[in-house]
């Protein structure tokens, strides 16, 4: 009876640690920005951001500061830019694709923020963008902002992150 409870405790505390860790000056997991060209790894470094509540809340702050909210609207419902709250992804919904959209921009009007946003902040933005469509763990989802009430996005049925291959070019 003791072993599983200890294991459960260890699991919970690991999840707790990962969710709560405040990491300030850690180097970007994807080396310097200059090596943007190499293929984006999957898995490990992402949980550093996608399972970290602090990274998601920093992403929420930057989503407002860097004017992502201007085109994609505060709640991610879209405006000039496409909505980020529904499950539809024009350029792929995998974290790596969202990261490339931010860094390199997209032809139909998404500006390239690569040289202007430090890399770990880009990953924080990716974490927040995925939380907009309810793709993160429930205990990592950000709370309501201290602003006008927008309401949480409909929790996505499938928590699985979409695959990495991008959709065909939009019409």
């Amino acid at each position, binding site marked *: 009876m003791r072993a599983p409870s200890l294991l459960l405790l260890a699991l919970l505390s690991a999840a707790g640690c990962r969710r709560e860790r405040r990491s300030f000056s850690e180097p970007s997991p994807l080396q310097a920005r200059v090596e943007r060209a190499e293929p984006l790894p999957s898995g490990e470094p992402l949980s550093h951001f996608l399972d970290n509540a602090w990274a998601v809340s920093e992403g929420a702050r930057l989503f407002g500061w860097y004017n992502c909210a201007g085109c994609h609207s505060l709640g991610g419902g879209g405006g000039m830019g496409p909505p980020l709250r529904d499950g539809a992804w024009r350029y792929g919904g995998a974290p790596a694709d969202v990261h490339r959209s931010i860094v390199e921009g997209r032809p139909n009007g998404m500006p390239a923020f690569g040289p202007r946003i430090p890399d770990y902040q880009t990953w924080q933005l990716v974490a927040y963008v995925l939380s907009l469509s309810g793709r993160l763990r429930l205990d990592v989802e950000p709370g309501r902002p201290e602003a006008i009430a927008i*309401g949480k996005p409909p929790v996505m049925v499938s928590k699985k992150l979409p695959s990495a291959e991008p959709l065909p070019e939009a019409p």
Partner: protein
Amino acid sequence: MSERRRVTVRELPSYAFGPRDPMWWGVALLMCIEGTTIALLLLMYFYTRQRVDVWPTTAPARDSLYAGAATTAVLLASIVPTHLMNGAAYRGDLARIRRFMVLMTALSLAALGTRIWEFRALPFRWDTDAYGSVVWGLLTLQTTHLGLGVIENLMFVVLLYRGPVEKKHLVDVEVNGMYWYFVVGGWLPIAATIYGEALFR
């Protein structure tokens, strides 16, 4: 051995009604705690009210007023069987206690039903704005009291019909009646605040 004064207690009864009974005091203190909580939440309602420019921000629809009136009516009606049940408890008349307890439990379940209708009739959610939060807060708090009351009533019904009914249970019946008065009493100021506001807006 010096002179031993003796206080004999052999003839004293084994139960007593009203403030002579410790359980009565226990529930009275619970009423103080929950009463303070209701009072503070009502103060929060009026504090928030003077900070918001349009109040109620999304007015409760007419449907809510009907639902609120229904709950209030059912709760007020449930006072009668409670009062009669207490009377029967004082006289130890188990048959009448059972009958009124069943009636009271039925009315309390009805109140729970109209409360669900109230929740569904509100045209706003708890996260719509400050007004919605405070109103849902008040309703949820009162529903907790109501829910606890319903569970206790159901337990009493089962106890009175199936279980071994003891003398001290008369006191418990009377105390449960007192708690039910508190549930109804606690609802009146809340209803007046929420629905009164919507009526005279």
